[in-house]
């Protein structure tokens, strides 16, 4: 028992000690806790002060900021606007806080601004910028540009924090700048247009001057007077060319030249130019050839007219300055792929060449290489400036390399799109008998010239194409109101209503044919005439005289569905044309279709006497206008039967008649005799063909 008492005593003692131990441990822990608490409180205090300072700093920035700072809550109401914001808008805090932000946005922009905020919200855009006008309390419009920040607090509540700036001045300045630019552009255009119309106006009196000098040449003059007259004549001639160039250049500057992108045969175009210049160079000791490393399987897309004009200028230049040697047309391939072809095109000559000082000047308007050049070679000094402008219109740049007394080379690089039309496909078409599939609607031919009428209508019959005829623009317009056509051929110069006016009507007034292709038929080769035709709404143009190939090519290019299966017709003609006629032209145009040649000659023989009678009549009544009209009409027909000389002479006759020169009346009897002689020749040629054909049939 005493043993158990001892144990119990020890137990009590141990537990007492343990309790004391626990108490002291707890005491220490409590002390520790207290210290931790103290230090926590200290930290909280420090942090609070820092936070207050930061908020104070932020508040002072916001309040003294020159920029507008505001917050918008999730309901689209202002929750805060800084003093700058109130200052700008003129509102007091109570008028905006808690009110919708749309209240101050100008009416026409409310929807846009709301859409903007919605976009920020829906696409969770962290930050974005927007500009819009607001209305101040005074009712003034202010433009602000603002950065919007999307704020999302941990509870998912969304608001916007906005920093905005008054950009009214900038917007105003921008608008003024825009207006100023517009005014400047208009002024520039007006200037170019003025120049264009002035040039045109200058031509009329100038024609009279030239006409009068012609008349004076017939007067009895002494040597001195004759010299004066010659100076007068050559000065008028220079002036006329100058005006023509100015007209071209001002048209380019006025932006009146629209680039066309149509399939064309570049090689053929350059070959034709080579041929033309070969004729011109015959009298000089200069040859012309083409150097090409390019073979084209398909037509290229581009502006044939402009490229033609560029080469006309460059070749004309080369011709002018080369007395001996050769002129070369260069065609070199630079890059090629399935879609595009990059070519370097150029013209080189072995002419007088230029030194560096001269080279620096040649592309400037009205500047030629030197005064000496102007004296010796003439010209307006605009040719190369025009060429440069035309080339830059095609997104390229002209480069010139030249050596004094050695020669000059001009070249430029062009990128062409390839078309899907094979080269020479049209040639191929005509060696076969051409057949069109039936068109949905007839073709309308608007033409006052009987020969042309017959010419086209015969081709239509031959190709089994339905057609209708109108003799002038008014007739055409009336027909278009009631009937529907597939395509219209439109002569430009016609009595009552001309082709431009008729086209304008068809394109703009209610009728059945607003959208269909209208092809201009023009005896003029002037770029400006053709451009005018395109500007007035025509789709394309065909220069008179044209051959069946050209006519069918143009039909096919505008009505691609009209192409039909071709029947092979092996037709090797051995017929030899009269050597007094243009054999090359005749063979090219009728070589494989002598029947057609017969048709043309027959039409010629039928229609020419009628026109000659009209001309006689016009002379009796001294009606120059009528004379010019008939000359214009007859002009292409001579070339069509293989006698281009008379076409050229009639061109002069037309000009003379236009300026009411007595030369027209004086020259006419000579021309008439030539025509009658030609008619005899054509008649016998027609009979020869008939005999040849009937022999062949047998």
């Amino acid at each position, binding site marked *: 028992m005493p043993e*158990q008492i001892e*144990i119990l005593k*020890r*137990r009590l003692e*141990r537990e007492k*000690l*343990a*309790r004391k*131990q*626990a108490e002291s*441990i*707890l005491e220490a*822990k409590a002390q520790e806790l207290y210290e931790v608490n103290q230090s926590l409180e200290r930290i909280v205090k420090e942090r609070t002060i820092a936070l207050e300072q930061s908020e104070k700093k932020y508040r002072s920035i916001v309040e003294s900021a020159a920029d507008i700072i505001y917050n918008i809550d999730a309901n689209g109401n202002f929750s805060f606007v800084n003093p700058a914001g109130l200052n700008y808008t003129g509102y007091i805090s109570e008028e905006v806080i808690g009110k919708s932000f749309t209240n101050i946005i100008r009416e026409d922009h409310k929807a846009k601004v709301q859409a903007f905020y919605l976009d920020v919200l829906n696409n969770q855009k962290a930050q974005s910028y927007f500009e819009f006008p607001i209305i101040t309390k005074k009712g003034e419009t202010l433009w602000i540009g603002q950065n919007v920040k999307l704020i999302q607090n941990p509870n998912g509540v969304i608001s916007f924090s906005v920093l905005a700036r008054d950009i009214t001045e900038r917007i105003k300045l921008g608008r003024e700048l825009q207006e100023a630019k517009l005014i400047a552009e208009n002024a520039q255009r007006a200037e170019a247009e003025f120049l264009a119309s002035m040039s045109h106006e200058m031509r009329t009196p100038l024609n009279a001057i030239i006409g009068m000098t012609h008349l004076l040449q017939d007067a009895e003059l002494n040597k001195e007077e004759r010299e004066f007259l010659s100076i007068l004549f050559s000065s008028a001639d220079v002036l006329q060319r100058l005006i023509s160039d100015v007209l071209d250049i001002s048209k380019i500057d006025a932006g009146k030249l629209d680039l066309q992108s149509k399939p064309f045969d570049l090689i053929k175009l350059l070959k034709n130019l080579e041929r033309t210049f070969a004729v011109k160079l015959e009298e000089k000791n200069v040859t012309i050839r083409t150097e090409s490393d390019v073979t084209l399987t398909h037509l290229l897309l581009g502006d044939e007219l402009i490229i033609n004009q560029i080469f006309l200028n460059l070749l004309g230049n080369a011709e002018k300055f080369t007395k001996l040697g050769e002129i070369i047309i260069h065609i070199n391939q630079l890059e090629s792929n399935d879609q595009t072809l990059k070519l370097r095109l150029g013209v080189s000559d072995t002419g007088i060449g230029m030194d560096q000082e001269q080279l620096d000047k040649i592309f400037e308007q009205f500047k030629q290489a030197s005064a000496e050049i102007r004296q010796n070679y003439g010209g307006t000094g605009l040719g190369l400036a025009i060429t440069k402008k035309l080339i830059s219109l095609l997104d390229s740049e002209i480069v010139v390399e030249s050596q004094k007394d050695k020669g000059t080379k001009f070249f430029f690089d062009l990128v062409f799109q390839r078309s899907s039309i094979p080269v020479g496909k049209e040639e191929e078409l005509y060696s076969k008998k051409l057949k069109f599939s039936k068109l949905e609607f007839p073709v309308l031919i608007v033409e006052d010239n009987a020969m042309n009428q017959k010419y086209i209508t015969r081709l239509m019959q031959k190709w089994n194409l339905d057609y209708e005829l109108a003799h002038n623009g008014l007739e055409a317009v009336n027909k278009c109101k009631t009937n529907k056509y597939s395509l219209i051929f439109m002569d430009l110069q016609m009595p009552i209503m001309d082709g431009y006016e008729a086209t304008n009507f068809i394109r703009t007034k209610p009728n059945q044919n607003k959208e269909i292709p209208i092809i201009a038929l023009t005896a003029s080769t002037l770029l400006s005439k053709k451009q005018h035709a395109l500007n007035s709404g025509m789709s394309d143009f065909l220069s008179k005289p044209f051959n069946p190939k050209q006519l069918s090519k143009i039909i096919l290019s505008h009505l691609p569905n009209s192409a039909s299966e071709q029947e092979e017709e092996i037709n090797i003609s051995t017929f030899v044309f009269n050597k007094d006629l243009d054999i090359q032209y005749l063979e090219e145009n009728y070589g494989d279709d002598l029947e057609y040649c017969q048709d043309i000659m027959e039409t010629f023989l039928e229609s020419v006497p009628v026109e000659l009678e009209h001309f006689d009549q016009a002379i009796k009544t001294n009606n120059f206008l009528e004379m010019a009209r008939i000359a214009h009409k007859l002009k292409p027909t001579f070339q069509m039967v293989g006698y281009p000389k008379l076409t050229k002479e009639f061109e002069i006759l037309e000009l003379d008649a236009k300026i009411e020169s007595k030369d027209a009346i004086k020259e006419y009897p000579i021309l008439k005799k030539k025509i009658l002689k030609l008619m005899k020749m054509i008649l016998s040629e027609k009979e020869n063909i008939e005999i040849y054909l009937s022999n062949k049939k047998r």
Partner: protein
Amino acid sequence: MLGIVFTEFFEMVEEKFNYEMVDKLIQSSSSESKGVYTAIGSYPHSEIVEHVVNLHKETEIPIPVLLKTFGRYLHGTFVKNYVGFFEEAKNGFDFLESIERYIHVEVKKLYPNAQLPTFDSERISDNEMILNYHSDRRMGDFALGLIEKTMEYYKEPAEITLTNVKEDGSHVQFKILKS
């Protein structure tokens, strides 16, 4: 070593035997503490080893059995005092994984000087887990008791095998296979 281990050890000895046995163990010990222990104090590890060895001598119960039994006993105390840890885990494996990652982290906050064993675990499948025990205290059998009671607590009967990876018992691997 945390005081709670000592107080609970003597609670168990008193419960399974009587206070005479407690007194005997303390009286025969050479320890500094002279049997004065409180749950919130901290005492040398060698003292608990001496008590366990002495208990073995007195009762002839093998030491591994004694340690395992103590582990099972202490588990009850843990559940009573720290039920939150148990409620947070959905099952036994989740709880065992939480020892290293969560419970020991919290213990360290309260007792910065505590020297705790480290555990790493790998779930082989939904039913099988490998648990590695690392401690210089070499009390793998004590851990076995705790693990057994843990699986019982979550009503997930399991076969638990103990393998000594290191012979001295400082690295022990438990394979827990739910049945």
